[in-house]
């Protein structure tokens, strides 16, 4: 290379960005957590919560009086599995979730034992009740018809994948900024950089740009696995998905920078990252809908950046929403990002 203009030959920004990219792609562990782990999760959870073709209700009946009558009733009923057990075992299995509902027949009367706080058990009790009432001669006063949905977009895996993408955006930001920066501080590399004429802004721009560059293969990979591997639909525009991912990644990178501003030990940053991420894993609608939490918690939950990310991704991917309709969620992400960056720049410690 000709050395005509030596000042142009080396770009600190380019070198810093390449440094981050090289460090990342030469670290097999990082590759695993970013690319392989979410797919494992998707496969595992997808299998555990796959839509079962026909849900079988497990009914328990105490052996002895009335058991035969129940056998008679459920012999021809599809969708039920009757088990005759000693009464005590029956209750034990019920408590362990091996049975959905227990039926006691006494003379002409029936008694249902179940846990009403479990939604599916209450539902099973009603199904069992209907079967018994029908066997006794009850008829539907109004004719009804069922239509069964099975198209993509309504399955659990469809719900799950946008959540996993959100989780990856969160983890990438917090780990890629937070952990990496503290590691550099622990290794005295930040101090070593401080001792050079490196511009502080170059360093932060490089950290952020490399995070955003990592985003491209990450998103392409996860979306490809979701769409091609699991048939998850993307009904809205890819541009909208990309934009949401970009804003979310910026926001979480800010959060990562914030937790990294002062920590001087890897133990500290690991603890801080867990402190930030654990509530978001639980509350943020990654694995199940945020609607499960009580109304009083909703304002808090809806204000989390992870919830905003997941809501926006699901709206665009599953419902075909436009980017413009997600301004509220984008605003939440941007707000977190802005506050994080402002605080970080005030608090950042190089040494």
């Amino acid at each position: 290379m000709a050395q005509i203009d030596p000042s142009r030959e080396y770009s600190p920004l380019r070198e810093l960005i390449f440094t981050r990219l090289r460090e990342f792609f030469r670290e097999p562990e990082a590759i695993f957590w970013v690319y392989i782990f979410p797919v494992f999760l998707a496969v595992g959870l997808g299998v555990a919560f796959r839509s079962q073709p026909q849900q079988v209700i497990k009914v328990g009946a105490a052996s002895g009086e009335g058991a035969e009558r129940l056998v008679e009733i459920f012999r021809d009923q599809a969708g039920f599995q009757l088990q005759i057990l000693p009464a005590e075992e029956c209750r034990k299995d019920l408590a362990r979730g091996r049975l959905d509902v227990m039926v006691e027949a006494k003379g002409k009367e029936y008694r249902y034992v179940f846990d009403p706080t479990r939604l599916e058990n209450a539902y099973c009790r009603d199904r069992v009740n209907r079967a018994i009432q029908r066997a006794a001669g009850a008829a539907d006063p109004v004719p009804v018809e069922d239509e069964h949905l099975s198209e993509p977009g309504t399955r659990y895996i469809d719900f799950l994948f946008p959540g996993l993408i959100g989780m990856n955006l969160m983890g990438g930001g917090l780990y890629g900024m937070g952990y990496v920066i503290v590691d550099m501080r622990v290794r005295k590399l930040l101090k070593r950089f401080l001792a050079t004429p490196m511009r502080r802004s170059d360093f932060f721009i490089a950290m952020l740009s490399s995070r955003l560059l990592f985003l491209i293969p990450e998103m392409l990979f996860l979306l490809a696995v979701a769409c091609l591997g699991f048939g998850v639909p993307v009904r809205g525009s890819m541009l909208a998905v990309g934009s949401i991912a970009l804003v979310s990644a910026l926001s979480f990178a800010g959060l990562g920078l914030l937790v990294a501003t002062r920590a001087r030990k890897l133990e500290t940053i690991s603890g801080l990252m867990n402190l930030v991420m654990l509530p978001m894993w639980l509350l943020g609608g990654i694995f199940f809908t945020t609607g499960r939490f009580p109304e009083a918690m909703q304002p808090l939950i809806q204000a989390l950046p992870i919830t905003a990310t997941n809501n926006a991704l699901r709206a665009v991917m599953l419902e075909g929403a436009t980017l413009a309709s997600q301004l509220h969620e984008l605003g939440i992400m941007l707000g977190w990002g802005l506050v994080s960056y402002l605080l970080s720049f005030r608090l950042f410690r190089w040494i």
Partner: protein
Amino acid sequence: MPEFLKEPLEASPPPGQRADPRQLAVRCRGLRKVYDGRVEAVRGLDLEIPQGECFGLLGPNGAGKTTTIEILEGLLRPTSGEVEVLGERWGRRDHELRQRLGISLQETRLSEKLTVRETIRLFRSFYRRGLDPDATLEMVSLGSKARAQVGKLSGGQRQRLAVACALVGDPDLLFLDEPTTGLDPQSRRQLWEVIRDFGKRGRTVLLTTHYMDEAERLCNRVAIIDRGEIIALGSPAELISSLGGEHVIEFAVQSKGSSMGEPNGREAPAPGALIPAIKELRSVRAARADGSGISLTVEKPHLAIPALLEALQAHGLEIARLATRHASLEDVFVNLTGRHLRDEGNGSN
């Protein structure tokens, strides 16, 4: 500009009053550093290092060497005192000043996954002007390792890479904090060559070390520093001659007739008891107990040794061991503080 982008030392130094630097690379006055309001790591340090000199801060661990050098490097803020580096104070044009400095910290773990060449290129990119990265690697004999990852290097190679990263900006002033600590003798000698070559080009070096031989061989001048203060300053030769003699005799005694295998015969007197008498002997400048033996600073060994043997004879003692050597900076330190430079150094403390 946001706070974090500014230099960390945003003190507002008094304007004007820049004394004529007269080619001083480093000048500091009344330097003090107190940690947490209690620990006084540096206690009023004055230094003047002319350009082109290789200057050593020599002292035991915890003497305040690293604190001092990091204040001079602009990485720590002094509690009080003035610092001028290449005629500049920290907090004004730091970016410009850093363009002219090369710094190697006591302990930096460079990224293990980067190759040697990528690492040196990264540091080169921070400087407007500088050396060719590959040429710099050749200077520290790492040319053949350019494509190796840092994680695969030996301790000595890593340390040479760290120094190369300090050299690649072609600095006027090079700061090295314990550059050879923990290295094997061959790696140390290789690094000394690198530092000497740098000095030959008329550049200034400030290094800290707790190896007296390093300071003696490398430095034009040395400040011996103990408990945050300079206790001696001068060229190694000057400091050694300040002992009054350039030779050291180390010996141990035993009572006459004890077996050779037991140099410390039961009846041998404590070394301390002999010292007053021995101090008066011909050509002896200083005497002190050193572990089980006695250490003398001597001007002319050929006069002192016969006198010593004669005196011992008179006390009914004989020599169990005896060695003579040239005095070193270690002896200067021991003479000044009564302690050895390093815990693992010869003899006891």
